[in-house]
């Protein structure tokens, strides 16, 4: 077993355990913290796959912004930080069936794909420059990129409009 495999197994165990704790812990803040551990585990997977840019984006966007914002919102809205209510909603059966179906489908899909035993191609060293060019080249992903940018801009303007305090009205 190589060192890479040991790192992979350790990360996988930690990520899965953290993901499990997100839904089982009764404390909301703890759930958010476990979520951060799980997201960090995913970032480590990206690193193991030599997708360093994706790993950094994962940490900045998911941990640095989204998870911290979630904790912020929980702290602001919950008076009692320790939630003592039941942990399952009224529709937990449907949710269980749906997630079981989804999991089964994913397992079936992964099983049906024949994976090559050895790497198909070497990962190029400086893939960030290629990624950047692909995002803005007309033959690449310029349209999805621009659509996503406009969507984010719209959300930004919407947030400013909602938060705007009107004077003289």
């Amino acid at each position: 077993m190589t060192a890479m495999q040991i790192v992979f197994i350790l990360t996988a165990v930690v990520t899965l355990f953290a993901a499990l704790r997100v839904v089982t812990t009764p404390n909301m803040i703890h759930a958010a913290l476990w979520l951060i551990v799980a997201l960090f585990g995913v970032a480590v997977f990206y690193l193991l796959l030599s997708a360093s840019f994706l790993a950094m984006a994962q940490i900045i966007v998911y941990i640095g912004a989204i998870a911290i914002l979630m904790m912020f919102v929980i702290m602001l809205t919950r008076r009692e930080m320790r939630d003592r209510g039941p942990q399952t909603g009224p529709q937990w059966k449907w949710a269980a069936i749906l997630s079981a179906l989804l999991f089964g489908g994913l397992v079936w899909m992964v099983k049906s794909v024949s994976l090559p035993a050895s790497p198909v191609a070497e990962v190029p060293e400086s893939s960030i420059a290629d990624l950047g060019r692909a995002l803005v080249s007309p033959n690449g992903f310029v349209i999805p990129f621009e659509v996503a940018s406009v969507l984010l801009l719209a959300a930004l303007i919407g947030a400013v409009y909602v938060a705007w305090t009107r004077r003289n009205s």
Partner: protein
Amino acid sequence: MGILSQPIGVIAEWLRNLFLGWGLSEGLTTVLLYLIGAGVLATLVQVWVIFLIWFERKIIGRFQDRLGPNRVGPYGLLQPFADLIKIITKEVIIPRDADKAVYLLGPIIMDAGVLAIWAVIPLMPMVGMDVNVAALYTIAVGAFATLGILMAGWASNNKFALLSAFRTVAQMISYEVPTVLALLIPVMLAGTMSLQGIVEAQHVWYIVFAPLAFVIYFIASVAEVGRTPFDLLEAESEIVAGFHIEYSGMVFAIFYVGDFLHAFTIGALGAVLFLGGWRGPGAETFPLLGLLYLWIKAFLVYFLVVWARGSLPRVRIDQMMDFSWKFLTPLALILLVVAAVLDHFVMGFGMWGRALSHFAANVVIAVLTLRYLDHYDKVRESKRRMVAQPGQYPVARPPVPVETSTEAAS
């Protein structure tokens, strides 16, 4: 390969042969070497904080017309060691209703986030992890410092600590935007996100290319560290001591070390991004000289941080937010666009031609900004409602007494 030309390489090679001689596998040896390297770097950098504490107390002392620590050892150099012994002997008190695990993890995560930045800082030529996303990485691990403070503030089960955690999040998320935008300018000029690559590309220091970006980077990073004038997260007069109010003993010391180290780290990052990192005469042949140059430059920036701490009052929270969103962010965006467009045209001008045209553009932007600020100030002044202010009379001025009696007497 001599010890002078490749000091780290020689030691690493010796250790590698030692481990291989013990019969360890190639992969395990590499992992072990990385672990040892990380451990040594993290330990040395944290021990360095002992000196930083002395330096800062001494400098702040001078700013306040005091001598600073001068009793223990020559020039008070041993004072931090005395403090260290004192703080180790103190009891670590955990509040009864605190969330124990999160409470203890908070300072560790905060400190780890700061230490992680050092993994990518190019200390000398050919030393330091040459990651091709290093510039982004420094921002990413910075998020962990925020997270640690947030965890500490919440887990303490104290309203002042929680308020401080809220302030921290608001401040750090706001100031992350100008930091990233200012950081993008050296990245764009060098054409790489690797910090080693950025240092190697600085035949002319980037502070000549982009002085305004350096200023924005400096201000925004001081705010990210939460130093005066942006120390709202531990404003003593408002929220007692902020997020570390419930911490004592060594657990508090970790916060303390993390704070000082963070301030020095932004100095080192500023030196790498704008002041040429390890560049200097003879650094290519003797890498240890490069380390010395980097250290001197980092200290220059760090001195600026301490200087600001010694001379500026704390800003109000609305002023702080306004400053980031209404001034620093737009200015950084303008600088980024101007630098990108200008660089396209002056690419062929040679090293100094390129640098000077960027510098000229920066001067023009600076003058325009100052003119605009002047104009903005005047407009705001004219719209201001008349309110009672010291030294001004909201109602008609009382008549000035005519001093005739003294003249008559003389």
